[in-house]
């Protein structure tokens, strides 16, 4: 019994580490009494969220169907195409589209609601793609055929059989996209569209109204909580079942149209942003941007490396607990809480917490790494948990009966099978941390700079050519890390 309690210590410590700073948010917000209900921000945020989910759904649905239910030939390509946008920082995509429009550009200036809507949809649709793909993959072709044989026309067979089976997955993924809209800072900030995240930042940085920033952050947290509850109501998406007979609709002459659609999506989500980036890099070649590249890269790595290592180590530990003591779903869920807290709110709470409780930590690299680790732990936990799930607990127990203490048994019997997942998890956190913007802006020590900060601050001032080298470096890191993760993942 004592051992079991001791085993939960790291989880409890993690929760405490998260709850302690967050507690300072209401403390600070309610110091001057409750503020007014932020109707305007609420409306803007909800409107953007819904619009993005809708558009992302429309983008992802045909792709997922082609991938999972048709004989479309380039399925691997489709998977890459639909997942790679996730690796790009949103503000880099926003930067590309921003620089296309306006004075001297080839498009009308893209900003505000439409700008945020367009860019957020383009880089969050992969979540819907993945959810819909799994739903289609687990759908048995015979279900559709049964409906047809029972007298339904193709369209009504879709409506009565396919949609009801696919919609739960779509709803779950839609909520994930919605959460990302709530959490996003870079895109809405560049598009000057004040959803909660941007409004909080404005209140804090520009308006110096800390009570209002905290009050808005509290509302944002409440909204996130609501979405999480809705997600819980939907239930966990079932792992894709192996259908008896998967769908393989023959495209025939329609294949050409499918290719066209895929090419168009590829161009818009990857080709165009990257092309524009390359254009700006050439424009600014040798300019002042390149000179500052070194320190920014160094800063990014200095913050991301310890966070990645820490998160990976913590994930291996928590993953072990979840693996050894299953049936404690609530604890496992707790590990994902930090991920759900929008970075702006987490960053703000870290500031309040450090100023009040641990002033010597305010504006230190330590605090930044601490916030990163709390927030991105879930990213490392994903592959690590999956790897644990594939290992029989008996291996651990066999090592114990052969004379190993618990840690020795883990190190000799379990860890060798987790190295790939541990590295993949660490890399994911590394990438997420390098890309991360709002917490970095809020918590970075004075004079400390990163690729994300340099990119953002230049784009914000319209210095597109100067921002290019930093953005390109970010994209290169993203590409390298994604390739690395894919490599390690295969070894799992």
């Amino acid at each position, binding site marked *: 019994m004592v051992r079991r309690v001791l085993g939960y210590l790291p989880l409890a410590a993690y929760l405490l580490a998260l709850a302690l700073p967050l507690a300072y948010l209401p403390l600070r917000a309610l110091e001057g009494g409750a503020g007014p209900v932020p109707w305007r921000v609420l409306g803007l945020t909800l409107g953007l969220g819904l619009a993005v989910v809708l558009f992302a759904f429309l983008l992802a649905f045909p792709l997922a169907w082609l991938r999972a239910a048709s004989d479309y030939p380039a399925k691997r390509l489709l998977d890459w195409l639909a997942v790679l946008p996730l690796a790009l920082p949103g503000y880099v995509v926003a930067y590309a589209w921003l620089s296309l429009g306006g004075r001297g550009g080839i498009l009308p200036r893209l900003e505000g609601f439409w700008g945020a809507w367009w860019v957020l949809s383009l880089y969050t649709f992969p979540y819907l793609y993945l959810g819909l793909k799994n739903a289609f993959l687990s759908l048995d072709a015979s279900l559709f055929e049964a409906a047809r044989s029972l007298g339904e026309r193709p369209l009504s067979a879709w409506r009565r059989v396919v949609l009801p089976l696919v919609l739960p997955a779509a709803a779950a993924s839609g909520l994930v996209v919605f959460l990302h809209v709530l959490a996003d800072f870079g895109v809405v900030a560049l598009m000057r569209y004040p959803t909660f995240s941007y409004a909080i930042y404005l209140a804090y940085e520009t308006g110096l109204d800390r009570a209002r920033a905290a009050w808005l952050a509290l509302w944002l947290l409440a909204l996130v909580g609501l979405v999480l509850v809705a997600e819980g109501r939907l239930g966990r998406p079932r792992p894709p079942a192996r259908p008896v007979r998967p769908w393989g609709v023959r495209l025939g002459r329609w294949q050409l149209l499918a290719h066209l659609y895929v090419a168009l999506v590829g161009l818009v989500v990857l080709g165009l942003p990257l092309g524009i980036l390359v254009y700006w890099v050439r424009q600014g070649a040798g300019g002042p941007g390149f000179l500052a590249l070194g320190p920014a890269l160094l800063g990014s790595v200095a913050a991301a490396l310890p966070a990645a290592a820490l998160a990976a180590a913590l994930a291996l530990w928590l993953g072990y607990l979840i693996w050894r003591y299953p049936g404690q779903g609530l604890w496992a869920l707790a590990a994902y809480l930090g991920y759900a807290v929008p970075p702006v709110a987490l960053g703000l709470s870290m500031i309040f917490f450090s100023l009040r409780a641990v002033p010597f930590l305010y504006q230190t690299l330590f605090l930044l790494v601490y916030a990163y680790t709390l927030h991105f732990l879930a990213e490392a936990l994903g592959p690590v948990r999956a790897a644990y799930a594939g290992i029989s607990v*008996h291996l651990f127990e*066999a*090592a114990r*009966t*052969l004379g190993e*203490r618990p840690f020795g048994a883990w190190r000799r019997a379990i860890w060798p099978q987790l190295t790939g997942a541990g590295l993949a998890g660490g890399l994911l956190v590394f990438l997420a941390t390098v890309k991360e913007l709002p917490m970095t802006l809020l918590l970075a020590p004075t004079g400390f700079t990163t690729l994300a900060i340099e990119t953002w601050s230049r784009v914000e001032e319209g210095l597109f050519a100067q921002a290019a080298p930093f953005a390109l470096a970010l994209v290169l890191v993203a590409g390298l890390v994604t390739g690395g993760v894919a490599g390690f993942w295969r070894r799992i």
Partner: protein
Amino acid sequence: MSLLRAENLRFTRAGRDVLAGIELDLEEGELLAVVGPSGSGKTTLLRVLAGLERPDAGEVYLAGRRITDLPPEARDIGLVFQDYALFPHLDVAGNVGFGLYGRAERDRVVKDLLDRFGLTAFARRPVHALSGGQQQRVALARALAPGPRLVLLDEPFSSLDAGLRERVREEVREALKAAGTPALLVTHDQEEALSIADRLAVLHEGQIVQAGPPEEVYLRPKTPFVARFLGHTNLVPGRAEGETARTLLGPVLLAAPARGPVLLSIRPEHLALLPPDAPEGVPGRVVARRYKGHDLTFRVRVGEKNLRVQADYRAPWQPGDAVRVLVREPAAVLSPERYPVLNY
């Protein structure tokens, strides 16, 4: 003094007594089979003995030393898992040598064990490239390598093909005897238990209901559960009068003297079918005949009761034939069970 001793082991999970007061002894050099139906607590018992689970009450002693609170690595007890739990990142030699320290010592013991188990040619193979029988040998060799005082085996043959099972069973028994390591194996397969063990313990609902040499437990079951679990039997009520009992099969010799109303267990092979004009036995009629190649099973109606009779391949009877039924061996007297008799 016995090598392993379990006293009043209790283990409760989700309000259910998985182990309800286990009493168990295992002697030096012995091969003990704990047999019971699924859900009787076999695997839990092994896990408690190995130290992987902590009992809620009771004690475990190994060679007189109390080990109830020792972690698994400090117990000197080897365990062979039902799924073998071979380390997938290590080759055969790496698995066998896992629990050994010191290079020279490890190399020597591993070489010796691989040799003994006929695995030398596979030393550098990954474990997933082996057949089921070979994996099972690696698992046993790995458990024996650190020289444990005792090896526990969890359903060691259940994942093998029927054809392979009998051979591997022999191999395992020989390997254990050659190593001189006492072993406790659990199985739900009564035939396996009867054929491999020096001694048998029947587990039912978390308790050892009977233990002894296989012949004794088979021939003298103490309860209806044991009688039926270890093989087919006929449960026949009667009135005991000392050495014999009056039953619908006439006076039947008892294995142990008793008085009053009793329930007897008479094995099918202890009944003989005779021609209707024979001087012995009681009259009956053949109801069904099942041909199994090497022998025959009859269902014979005597009075109100259908009896199962095992006969040799020559038995000429067909359904409808009149026969006489003779009891050839003393019948086991069963004591009533505390728990309701289950239907098997």
